[in-house]
């Protein structure tokens, strides 16, 4: 039995060595995806190009522009005359954001007409989102600074108001009183009185300031204390690579298995194998084992490049993660086998594989969060094996959890592996007959 399976495995590798295109696909595909998802697919925009229409041309607008230009990610390219020009630069894709300062713009507006207007290009979704997020942060900082300045100004004004020039000796009653005193005493008295009154006023002012200050918002505290766990810099690559591990596994195994078996069917070699003493289970094992091994190499490749080159932290334990990945891998092999049993030729197999794999790419939560999908679509996601592997992978990679913390996904992956392999094997044996 092992000799026959060994002969099949050797034959598969021999053929793969000759089939440079397939071999290249099996090794290059993960590398290309790594580069794509590691470098290219990044939702964080590094440079945001800003133009401004400054109708206000006052200190406030200049201050905001200065602040924005000072930010690392923003580059203020220049000023525009009007909204038409703003539309043009957005259309031409030479600007990511246009700021429109209305006449009479104020950092702390009192009226609608004093508000800043921002235009972004919604057709470039991620740039627009990123730009809006960043610009709001800068504006918040500017407003915070404005509030600080305002507070200082109020305090200063109150201090000035606390020391009024008091013409108390000009009052008729006071003058009558002073006249009844010897001149030296009267002078000393009036000085004393002024000092006492000033102190009293200052004290009252201080008390009122204190009361006001308690009521006054503290801009420094307005921003919440944000603690981002597991991926503190919110890097896309740390989100993508753990998912990519699963994507590579399912793509390579499903596609290659389906095509590999259908190729035998199409070329008539399967009939020869059927007539040989090779049992159907040996045939299945002999066909699946090479793809299993190649998928394992791809898995390690993505894992190592992810951890070493892209600095994705791997906080969990490797062995349990490997075991879960193998479970997922077995399910994917079964899916490939199942596709091969219902396909007559490689073209059909390819179409079917793409039909099962592309939705997994889109709906499994690999890129887009499941939570953002409407229920009608989400139940489709829950039918897909990749949907269950990705949270486990991300959990083990980034949170350092054990796969055992994910009992439900683990159970579903196990069920899928079992069902796919059993159904595919039964169907395969029947199709041989």
């Amino acid at each position, binding site marked *: 039995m092992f000799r026959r399976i060994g*002969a099949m495995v050797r034959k598969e590798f021999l053929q793969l060595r000759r089939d440079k295109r397939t071999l290249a696909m099996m090794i290059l595909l993960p590398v290309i995806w790594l580069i794509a998802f590691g470098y290219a697919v990044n939702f964080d925009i590094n440079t945001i190009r800003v133009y401004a229409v400054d109708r206000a041309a006052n200190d406030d607008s200049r201050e905001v522009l200065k602040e924005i230009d000072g930010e690392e990610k923003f580059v203020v390219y220049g000023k525009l005359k009007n909204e038409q020009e703003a539309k043009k630069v957005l259309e031409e894709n030479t600007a990511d954001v246009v700021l429109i300062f209305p006449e009479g713009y104020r950092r702390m507006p009192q009226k609608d007409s004093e508000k800043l207007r921002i235009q972004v290009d919604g057709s470039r979704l991620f740039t627009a989102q990123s730009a809006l997020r960043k610009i709001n942060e800068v504006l918040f900082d500017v407003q915070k600074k404005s509030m600080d300045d305002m507070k200082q100004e109020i305090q200063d004004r109150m201090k000035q108001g606390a020391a009024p020039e008091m013409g108390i000796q000009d009052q008729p009653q006071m003058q009558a009183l002073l006249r009844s005193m010897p001149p030296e005493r009267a002078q000393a008295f009036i000085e004393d009185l002024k000092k006492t009154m000033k102190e009293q006023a200052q004290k009252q002012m201080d008390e009122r300031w204190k009361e006001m200050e308690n009521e006054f918002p503290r801009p420094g505290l307005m921003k919440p204390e944000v603690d981002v766990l597991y991926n503190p810099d919110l890097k896309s690559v740390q989100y993508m690579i753990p998912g990519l591990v699963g994507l590579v596994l399912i793509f390579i195994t499903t596609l290659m298995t389906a095509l590999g078996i259908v190729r035998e069917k199409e070329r008539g070699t399967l*009939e*020869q194998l059927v007539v040989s003493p090779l049992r159907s289970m040996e045939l299945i094992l002999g066909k699946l084992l090479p793809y299993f091994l190649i998928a394992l190499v791809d898995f390690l490749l993505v894992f190592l490049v992810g951890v070493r080159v892209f600095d994705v932290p791997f906080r969990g334990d490797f062995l349990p993660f490997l075991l879960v990945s193998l479970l997922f891998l077995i399910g994917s092999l079964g899916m490939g086998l199942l596709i091969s049993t219902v396909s007559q030729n490689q073209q059909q197999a390819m179409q079917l594989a793409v039909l099962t794999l592309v939705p997994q790419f889109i709906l499994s939560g690999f890129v887009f969060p499941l939570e953002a999908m409407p229920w009608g679509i989400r139940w489709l996601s829950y039918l897909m094996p990749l949907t269950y592997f990705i949270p486990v992978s991300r959990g083990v990679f980034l949170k350092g959890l054990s796969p055992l913390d994910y009992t439900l996904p683990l159970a579903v992956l196990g069920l899928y592996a079992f069902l796919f392999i059993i159904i595919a094997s039964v169907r395969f044996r029947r199709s041989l007959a």
Partner: protein
Amino acid sequence: MLEMKEVSKVYGRHQALQPVSFSLEKEGIYGVVGPDGAGKTTLLRLMAGALRPSSGEVIHTTGAKIGYVPQTFGMYEDMSIAENLHFYGQLNGVPAPEREKRIRELLDRTGLAPFSDRLAGALSGGMKQKLAIATAVLHRPGLVVLDEPTNGVDPVSRQEVWEIVRSVLREGTTVVISTQYLEGAGLCDEVFLMHQGRIIGRKSPSAFVSEFPYHVWVVRDAGSVRVEWLPRLRQEPAIAEAYARGTDLVVLCREKERVKEMLETLRRDREGVGPVEEEPASYEDVFTQAVKEAEGRESA
């Protein structure tokens, strides 16, 4: 060696093979002939075990050692001749030293030795068939089933394929071979004639010919009159069949002398038409007529 008990095959709603029962007891070459769609390939695949019957039972009395050459080339085209032979040898459990020896021997016998490193996909039609047969007999099976191995092969290679088949028989392997080239049927020990999923005759080729109830008259060089004569001859009750073969006109009949006279009379009026001569029945005549009669019986 092989026993078929009420074996039939149905594909969907199409009955490809009506229940057949027979056994192959003696060593020899068994030919399977019949028109396209007669069920030859289905019968052969069932005999080889490449197909499970819809009903009945296929019993290989010599054990499970079977060789099979399907109609379409079933070797790995991206592997060399030697690699294909080694792979199937391994699958069939031929131990390494014996395998080496046997492969050398088969490569020599088939004339493929100088090309053993050539990829199977780069071989000519004849070489492909020789490789397929060598692979099928590598493990010295008791029974080898060859589905039209001479199809699409040039006449010289066809001859070589038959020589290989005979050498296989000398090793004690029984051969079942289907063929469209009816002259090949003469090289068989027994022939199964098939029509519409049925075996309508099983005899030695010589018996097929000797039991043929018709005489064959050939009018030589009848090129100019064939079109004119054929419809008329076909309506003649004494004539079973008339057809053109090259420039000759072939007539099958029961009443030998009467038909000869008729042909001579027709010929006398025409210039340039050659003599009327008797010929032994060809396998083509024999099988074609048998199939026609079977069709006649079915429609009746």
